[in-house]
């Protein structure tokens, strides 16, 4: 579903080159739920924005749903984002002027879908996240957890092949975070491929597979001698 090979992302200024990702390799299979973890500044969000075709990369290859997306123009990238990818952001990123219904409608509008089909999909997605009764409410009238559920409904409405979540519970309290996580797990059980960036080892542990990024590279915590002892300690805490 998502395969990056020897991928690199370099930010260049006149005096310095900064590698956000370096020789980055990842292969996410269809139907997998992968958690991407790592310290701040390790390159997690850069990986996610490149995976979501929001940003270009400097070297390497990237295949999404068996399509090489390295050299696509803006229109083609937008079309793939619209049809194959669903985004869930830490800050929800709902549009404050639009009510819940209209927020969920945004990606469907750019797909040129007929009004009746849009309505069916929107209400179906809202029903799935338990907010069908709040369709006419505005984001400011909802709690953080409800706003994130609306964002998830917006991501689901277009039936994407890949769901990218960036710290989806980062702005929520524990109870709300648990609810959102349970919703993601349910969506995964229904067959969705999910890649979730998170700081939280407890959330990461609920994913099928963990990928750890340090200094722009994927590392195997269990095998890499630099992190082995820390990994064992952290794993013990999570189990305890």
């Amino acid at each position, binding site marked *: 579903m998502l395969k990056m090979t020897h991928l690199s992302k370099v930010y260049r200024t006149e005096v310095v080159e900064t590698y956000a990702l370096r020789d980055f390799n990842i292969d996410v299979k269809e139907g997998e739920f992968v958690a991407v973890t790592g310290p701040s500044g390790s390159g997690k969000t850069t990986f996610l924005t490149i995976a979501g075709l929001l940003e270009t990369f400097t070297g390497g290859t990237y295949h999404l749903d068996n399509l090489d997306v390295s050299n696509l123009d803006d229109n083609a990238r937008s079309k793939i984002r619209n049809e194959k990818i669903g985004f869930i952001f830490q800050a929800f990123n709902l*549009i404050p002027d639009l009510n819940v219904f209209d927020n969920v409608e945004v990606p469907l509008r*750019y797909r040129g879908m007929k009004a009746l089909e849009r309505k069916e999909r929107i209400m179906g997605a809202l029903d799935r996240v338990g907010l069908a009764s709040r369709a006419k409410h505005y984001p400011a009238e909802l709690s953080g957890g409800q706003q994130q559920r609306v964002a998830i409904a917006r991501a689901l409405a277009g039936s994407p092949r890949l769901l990218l979540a960036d710290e989806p519970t980062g702005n929520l309290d524990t109870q709300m975070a648990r609810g959102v996580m349970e919703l993601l797990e349910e969506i995964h059980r229904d067959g969705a491929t999910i890649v979730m960036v998170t700081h939280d080892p407890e959330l990461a542990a609920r994913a099928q597979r963990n990928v750890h990024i340090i200094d722009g590279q994927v590392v195997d915590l269990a095998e890499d001698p630099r992190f082995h002892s820390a990994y064992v300690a952290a794993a013990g805490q999570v189990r305890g």
Partner: protein
Amino acid sequence: MLGYYLDLAVRSLKRSPGLTALMILIVGFGVAASMTSYSVFRAVSGDPIPWKSSRLFVPQIDIWGPRGHADGSSDNDPPDAMDYTDAVALMRDHRGKYQSAMYRVSPSVVPPDPHMHPINVGGHAVYSEFFAMLDVPFQFGGAWGADGDAKHAAAVVINSKLNQKLFGGANSVGKTLNIDGKDYRVVGVLNNWNPKPTFFDVVNTGGFTSGQEDMFLPFTRAIDVGMSNDGNTNCSEVPKGSGFVGLQQSSCVWIAYMVQLEDKAAVSAYKDYLDGYFRDQKASGRFNWALNNRLRDLPAWLESEHVVPSDTKISLLVALGLLVACLVNTAGLLLAKFLRRSSEIGVRRALGAPRMAIYVQFLVEAGMVGLTGGVLGLLLTWVGIHGVNWVLPKEIASLAHVDLSLLALTLVIAVVATMLAGLYPTFRASRVQPALQLKTN
């Protein structure tokens, strides 16, 4: 999608009413200032007889020679009017389809109602072909015929306004009118014909400064009765004779002349005739300088006579400058407004909006500001046109008016200009990097 973009534009404009009102005010004032000035400019610079102006010509004969150009004039142009001798000679030779010599008169008229006092009226002494040449519309009756010119008929054509004043607006054809103490028979009533500029005689009217054209009477009759010239008279030397007869015998120019020529061949033939006439006069010893005639069509003639007042051109330029300044300000406000929504743009891009979709969305919003500003501009233009006599001469200001074409033009200019002003802000909005915005959030 247009409906969606319109809906988004309305929501966006409602979200920041203060900023929206400011932009609409700026566009409205800018458009109103330029359209008010344009309406004046249009009124004074438009073709007064567009269906025929290219077939109407004004001949000029250089009867003064170099001494007539010694007053600092650098264009070497012949006098812009004719003396009596040449005007009558050209009428007698009758080389155009229609032609008329004319001069401005201002006689007094004794109303048929004995209770009314005599009134001064303005008008022209013309030949009968004047009416056919200029497609003058009649409400009642018609012009006198060619025999009326030949027989110096005591006939008169009056305008509808004078007909209303003297005869209550009824059909007055056949009635008698006392003009300067002599009886004239009314042969026609014009259908409120009072073109501005008075293109047929800009020499004697300046185009705009004369009053109403109340009446027209035969040139030959006016000369017979000594009805004096109420227009301009220019002389290169002091007339030898005195009075109106002395004027007719002098080389002073005071008679306007217009001729209708149907095609290029007719124009060429008339030019040859005019040059031949000059050579004949030169051979007879009247002139001793080189040929220097002119034959301009009406648009070229109005241009050469500077009929369009220069202050209307200047005010139009100033107003257009103001519009540009307003649009630059609008562009700045739009830029600030659009970039404040970078977060929304980032989300839309992440959810699949291509750059073009963002571009169109914000361009529609700019267009809506322009349309609303245009509606406000219409109201302000209406106010401006009614207040333009504060800054321009009354006779010029009174020509400005609001009509459908001005309404449509105001709206189109407002929308197009605002969308042009919105091009850069819209371009910047469409270039917002979604990854950067989403990372920032």
